[in-house]
């Protein structure tokens, strides 16, 4: 166990990063997050650039700039931060309980479950724009529980590759069922092809408010769970010896993952690989302690999502790139880097 962790650290070349204390790194990351959030308010696909936004702050009356900054970019930034935190923390939890650095909500079929549920709702007559946010959340939850119960945590999870395979197979299955439903309903097919690529565009604060309760529940649960999770990392026996219930811990963690990913997917659609990349980077800063890793996921998740979102806005202005595509393009190399590590790290 211990040398696996060491090999993970060395694989990421974190020796050089350890010159600063984690606390210092945290400060740097938070500053970066604030900076990126400001940039996210300044830049967009439209004609309102940094100059007009700064003019606005100096008191110029510019109703268009005001609208775009406060009604479009500010909610979007806020949603990006929440989605980043939710996906990052969910990834860290999932990796901790499955002891598998490849466990990622998207890879394990959670996004496919959400897409399936949305397609089902569309076929049954809902319209994507008016879709009740709960549908996607429910789908994500079912997808998550399915894959994890299939994987039974340790059964398949013993071998990181097998868990990912099970997830990929499951995603493929749900994808096919989604296409089957859309076969005779081209209206739904036409709407879903825009939904399956995740995006932060056009999301409203109402959507965020709708998922806030579930996010709060998950947040409280994660705070309570942090210590038992850390104990679990020492092994099942050690955790039991310290008075924790390993099975209970895992189920609660799965519930949290489903709530977090469900909420993020319901707002933004499937956003691939964030749950893989964020804990990967966070561990490089935090080391093996799950509690510290979870803390570091808080600034890193939003940072990654916001940076990807900013790129998605400016790359093909006046249109936008879907965020899910960008994160898939950036995340796949990380996935490959993880498997290329000399030994597949077992957490």
């Amino acid at each position, binding site marked *: 166990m211990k040398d696996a962790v060491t090999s993970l650290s060395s694989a990421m070349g974190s020796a050089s990063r350890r010159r600063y204390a984690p606390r210092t790194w945290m400060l740097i990351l938070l500053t970066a997050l604030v900076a990126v959030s400001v940039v996210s308010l300044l830049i967009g696909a439209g004609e309102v650039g940094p100059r007009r936004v700064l003019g606005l702050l100096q008191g110029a009356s510019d109703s268009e700039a005001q609208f775009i900054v406060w009604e479009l970019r500010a909610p979007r930034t806020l949603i990006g931060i929440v989605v980043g935190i939710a996906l990052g923390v969910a990834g860290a939890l999932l990796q901790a309980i499955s002891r598998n650095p490849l466990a990622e909500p998207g890879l394990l079929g959670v996004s496919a479950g959400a897409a399936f549920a949305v397609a089902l709702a569309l076929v049954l007559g809902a319209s994507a724009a008016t879709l009740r946010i709960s549908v996607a959340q429910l789908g994500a939850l079912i997808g998550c529980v399915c894959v994890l119960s299939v994987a039974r945590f340790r059964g398949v999870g013993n071998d990181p590759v097998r868990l990912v395979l099970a997830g990929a197979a499951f995603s493929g299955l749900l994808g096919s069922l989604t296409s089957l439903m859309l076969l005779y309903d*081209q209206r739904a097919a036409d709407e879903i092809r825009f939904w399956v690529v995740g995006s932060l565009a056009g999301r409203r604060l109402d959507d965020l408010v709708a998922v806030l309760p579930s996010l709060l529940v998950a947040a409280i649960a994660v705070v309570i769970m942090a210590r038992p999770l850390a104990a679990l990392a020492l092994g099942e026996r050690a955790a039991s010896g310290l008075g924790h219930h390993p099975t209970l811990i895992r189920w609660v963690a799965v519930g949290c993952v489903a709530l977090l990913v469900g909420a993020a997917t319901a707002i933004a659609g499937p956003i691939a690989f964030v749950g893989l990349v964020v804990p990967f980077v966070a561990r490089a800063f935090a080391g093996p302690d799950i509690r510290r890793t979870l803390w570091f996921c808080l600034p890193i998740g939003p940072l990654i999502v916001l940076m990807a979102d900013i790129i998605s806005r400016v790359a093909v202005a006046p*249109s936008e790139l879907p965020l899910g595509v960008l994160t898939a393009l950036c995340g796949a190399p990380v996935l490959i880097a993880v498997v290329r590590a000399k030994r597949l790290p077992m957490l």
Partner: protein
Amino acid sequence: MGYSSLRNGLVGIVVGGLLVGGSLASVAQARTLDTAYGDVEVSDAPEHIVTLYEGALDAALAAGVTPVGAVTTRGGDNVAEYVEAHLNGERPEIVGVTREINIEAVLAQQPDLILAAAQLSEEQYQLLSRIAPTVVPHAQPLAFDNWKAEARLYGQALNREAEIDDAIATVDQRISELAAAIDDANAGGTAVLARWMPNGPMVMSKELIATGLLAKVGVEVRDAGLVAEGHPHSDILSLENLSQVDGDWLFLATLNADGQAALDAAKQSSAFTRLDVVKQDQVVPVNGQLWSSANGPLAAQAILDDIENALLP
């Protein structure tokens, strides 16, 4: 040499046999049409017609012929709604969807004439033309007037050129009447045709039949310079650029039969409700089946109906 001529002879027998089997048309009086796949001979009085394209179905109905087989409209499981009124109780058998033609079902109808879309692939053409003479219009770059040339070709194939010319003339006359009425009522102005997607709007090209008709009746159609040449619509526009679809009129198309639902969906976005055109309630929900997918003289009439109802209530 001997082999190939033998083979050609056999193919000829097969084709001839199918023709005779299909109907008792007299091959002697065949006429020759210029199609995308070269000259095609069609009989004088085709009776069993299969249309594999919405524009062809439209033209055939306009010429007074109800096909025995047709493909579904895009986004539906039957022919387009506006077509229903022209069927007179006879209903074409469905022989597939636009994206996948069921050639067996075509053969089962034993047609003596097949009218297909310009996009028909060579391989499909080879098979279909052995069932019956298959008329494929020349592919043209996207332009508003394409439907007229296509309808005329289908009219020739049906040997009902006069009826098609009449139908086109009726459309042209209707256009000039409507243009005059709109001018009198001073109801014109600028307009954008858009489809509302959850992430934002797509601006439709100025070269579609619907936008072309809008322009003809005196409405200044805009696409904000966003639609690439030859493309039927733009990429999804960022909400930050939504002001570019503002104007006097906004026609909001959806594949949903219920255009009002699309409008309600759009109104949930503050970027949309902020537009002048929305504040003045000048947004017209229209049926996307008709406005972004249909083609032909009957479709043109139906679109003109929509325009008249919207601009001259």
